[in-house]
């Protein structure tokens, strides 16, 4: 960085000033990316960088969240039932090393993402694809027998057999006087047929009593199932992608067919997510097998992408620089020479860096600086609605919290306007779980009424909070909302402490339901209310409340089958109504993105998904 000598006391040129000259955008990007392989990461900082070096079928539009801009695909169509989609790829699509980008790359990518051996944490993002879930979960029984149309027994009956096992961690420790057979039976039952190895399967073939089947499955069929599983295991468990008939197919090099398991009118919005990006087959395989994690194909110098930029420099914990990709199909309209991402985790440090002229845009702004920025630097301040909700997660298995009246009382006690004025500054008071997205307007059911809250509490048998155990609010970092909630709940007579755990323990405690209440938030992945509603179902890894409702899930399923957006949204509103009546989670605020941004950065508009396409950004000092 040029600059005159400190000794002469003249003012140095700030990094922003020299970057403006050079056409480089300096971005504060919170955390250092764990990796830049789209199949192995889950965080927002990573997604920002990925969206500069890769491009999906559909691209983001600089000013309209709900505008589906052409990406790799120039156009797409679907059939009447919204389950079969065809994407037409542009003929001149190329990777940054010059190799042509074809539909086969997409098929390879989705297969890799879903391959059980890769253990991609975000694989569920691709589950809308037909049979993707079965393939990813390695549901061998289902793939080898259930998907075989010629199989003597339908999957609706056969599927009730114990394929998936009980949770592996809860294998009961055998009593010492169990004989071998009982021990084996217990072990097999815990693992389930899908996870048994060849030796176990052979043992069952020889001794069918070692495994329990539902009565509806005849003995002959049992033998066939075990036989097929055994053959598969003995063959070394080959890849079942084709056998599973996963719903992606390359009709020809420039036509990609995607078949979904249920109608999804908003698929174009979903495929904008980085989990649906293509990865270069020829490069990935050059560095290792398809399912090898972290082979080094996605490092600086080896990463090949199809986006407006290429990865140029990666200095760990320091910055990542991407420079213009001349082979990008739309390279002519890319306004920046380069983008530099700086991982600054401490938001105060980031704010200071921005004010010292080291960044063009920050990742966030500490809420208490909001007032000051409003006064002194309103031209830098951005407060924009964001696709997220902050909430209090409740464990409905705990005494007292098992009563929806208590849960609703908690919600009624919270004065959301005050919370948004003092704690979640810049955020909007939540009016439901799902913020307003596209044309969706959730049921406006959240209110503040302390008297009603107290009445509900008394109604539930805990007048003034008497009889309720003391609760702990679990949080992963000190945040004023925990103190505020503590005080709010005290007004109801509840005794509440704050329990802080480090991130890993905080996540673990919720997943294992070892908490009373927990501060949480959810950022949606795509522009549809289901990204906020689908998680509150039984068995969903992001639910963690112990709550589920068959009526709720029925409505979600009903909505999935409705192609008409208005009707679908109406059904989803009904589902959300149930969620808010039962209140296993108490929404508090709808997120806003609050950050600092220099006015010379153009092509940057408020977007609820905050996915600003880097190709549209220009520097105009």
């Amino acid at each position, binding site marked *: *960085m040029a600059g005159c000598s400190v000794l002469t006391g003249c003012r140095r040129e700030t990094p922003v000033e020299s970057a403006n000259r050079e056409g480089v955008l300096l971005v504060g990007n919170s955390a250092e990316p764990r*990796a830049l392989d789209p199949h192995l990461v889950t965080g927002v900082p990573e997604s920002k960088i990925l969206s500069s070096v890769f491009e999906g079928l559909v691209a983001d539009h600089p000013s309209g969240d709900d505008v589906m801009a052409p990406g790799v695909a120039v156009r797409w169509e679907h059939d009447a039932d919204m389950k079969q989609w065809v994407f037409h790829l542009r003929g001149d699509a190329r990777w940054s090393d010059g190799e042509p980008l074809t539909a086969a790359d997409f098929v390879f990518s989705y297969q890799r993402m879903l391959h*059980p051996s890769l*253990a991609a944490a975000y694989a569920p993002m691709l589950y809308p694809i037909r049979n993707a879930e079965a393939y990813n979960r390695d549901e061998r029984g289902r793939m080898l027998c259930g998907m075989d149309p010629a199989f003597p027994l339908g999957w609706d009956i056969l599927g009730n057999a114990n394929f998936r096992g009980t949770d592996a961690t809860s294998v009961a420790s055998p009593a010492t006087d169990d004989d071998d057979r009982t021990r084996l039976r217990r072990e097999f039952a815990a693992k389930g047929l899908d996870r048994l190895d060849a030796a176990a399967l052979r043992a069952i073939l020889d001794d069918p009593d070692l495994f329990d089947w539902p009565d509806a499955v005849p003995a002959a069929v049992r033998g066939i199932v075990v036989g097929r599983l055994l053959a598969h295991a003995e063959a070394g468990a080959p890849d079942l992608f084709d056998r599973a008939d996963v719903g992606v197919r390359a009709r020809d090099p420039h036509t990609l067919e995607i078949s979904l398991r249920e109608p999804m009118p908003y698929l174009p919005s979903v495929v904008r997510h980085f989990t649906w990006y293509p990865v270069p087959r020829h490069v990935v395989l050059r560095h290792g097998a398809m399912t090898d994690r972290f082979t080094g194909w996605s490092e600086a110098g080896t990463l090949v992408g199809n986006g407006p930029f290429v990865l140029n420099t990666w200095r*760990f914990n320091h910055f990542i620089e991407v420079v213009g990709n001349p082979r990008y199909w739309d390279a002519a309209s890319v306004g920046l020479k380069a983008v530099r991402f700086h991982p600054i985790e401490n938001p105060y440090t980031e704010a200071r860096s921005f004010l010292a002229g080291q960044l063009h845009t920050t990742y966030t702004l500490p809420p208490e600086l909001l007032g000051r920025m409003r006064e002194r630097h309103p031209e830098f301040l951005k407060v924009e609605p964001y696709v997220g909700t902050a909430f209090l997660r409740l464990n409905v298995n705990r005494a007292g919290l098992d009563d929806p009246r208590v849960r609703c009382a908690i919600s009624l006690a919270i004065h959301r306007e005050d919370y948004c004025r003092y704690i979640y500054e810049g955020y909007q008071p939540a009016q439901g779980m799902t913020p307003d997205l596209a044309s969706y307007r959730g049921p406006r059911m959240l209110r503040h009424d302390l008297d009603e809250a107290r009445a509900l509490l008394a109604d539930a048998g805990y007048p003034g909070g008497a009889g309720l155990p003391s609760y702990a609010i679990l949080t992963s970092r000190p945040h004023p909302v925990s103190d505020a909630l503590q005080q709010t709940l005290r007004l109801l007579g509840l005794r509440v402490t704050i329990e802080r755990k480090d991130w890993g323990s905080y*996540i673990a405690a919720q997943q294992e339901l070892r908490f009373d209440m927990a501060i949480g938030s959810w950022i949606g992945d795509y522009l549809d209310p289901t990204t906020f509603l689908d998680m509150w179902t039984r068995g969903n890894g992001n639910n963690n409340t112990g709550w589920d409702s068959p009526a709720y899930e029925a409505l979600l399923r009903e909505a999935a089958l409705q192609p008409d957006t208005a009707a679908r949204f109406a059904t989803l509103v009904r589902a959300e109504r149930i969620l808010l009546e039962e209140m296993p989670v108490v929404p508090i605020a709808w997120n806003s993105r609050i950050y600092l941004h220099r006015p010379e950065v153009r092509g940057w508009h408020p977007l609820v998904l905050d996915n600003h396409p880097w190709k549209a950004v220009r520097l105009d000092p």
Partner: protein
Amino acid sequence: MTRVILQRLLQGLLVLFVLATLTFFLVRALPYGPFQDERAVPSHVRERLEQLHGYDKPLVVQYAMRLGNLARGELGTSLKVMEGREVTAILAQAFPVSLALGLMAMLIAVPVGVAAGVIAAVRRNRVVDYAVMAVALLGICLPNFVIGPVLAELFGRRLAWFPVSGWEPRDLSFMILPAVTLGLGSAAYLSRLTRTGMVEVLHQDFIRTARAKGQRESWVVLRHALRGGLIPPVAYLGPAFAATVSGSVVVESIFQVPGIGRLFIKAIETSDEALIMGPVLIYGSLIVVANFLADLVQLWLNPRLRSNS
């Protein structure tokens, strides 16, 4: 002499062994596994990952494997902070940064501290002495996490003489504020020790003799007194370096310096075993080497010690 070197080498290896063992068991004793993630990691995914990285083997076996790898120079792979990346690759970028910062801090601390101590000793009991010693005491008691932000605010943001934070490899101005913050404590200690040492030496007979012979005061000080007076501060050089190394963890965090310290903190927060082990061993090795060098300098300065070791 060779005996001493060998002895030190062995002791150094012992230190590293203790460090490695301590770190290994401390990290493994942390309650949650290495595969907890922001979004729920499906159980079959977690199992597969654990299998891949050998977490399903008994603890003692893992310990032995780890030691074996370390002996071969393989520091392992990071599992959380920079997943899948070789720790050696990560540290290869971060180490030069921390080293540069540490050396810069010492380069500031040693001359400044020693010079201040000499001046204070020579102008003993006058205003200069009290002033220097007062500043030194302040330097010892002001933690670096107070000085750092204040310097950053004052010289970084308000006066804009130096960057507030960050790092550019070839740009010295990014190094100044963090190095000063890091070196201040050591400079303060060194100045006090130097003063003590110099005062003691200046009292001795041969100094009076030199003065009586009519030699100039500054010559007396530099030629005769310094060698003896430097003994206490040099004895502290090893610990000073250790303190600098430890302090760098905080300073790197304040000034966003992409060194080992920040990686270490990240690794602790996420319980990333390999990335904890690497920095710990590097720090340990640095301190062993620094102590060794400091001992050598001490031997050179103080011949009396040679016969004793």
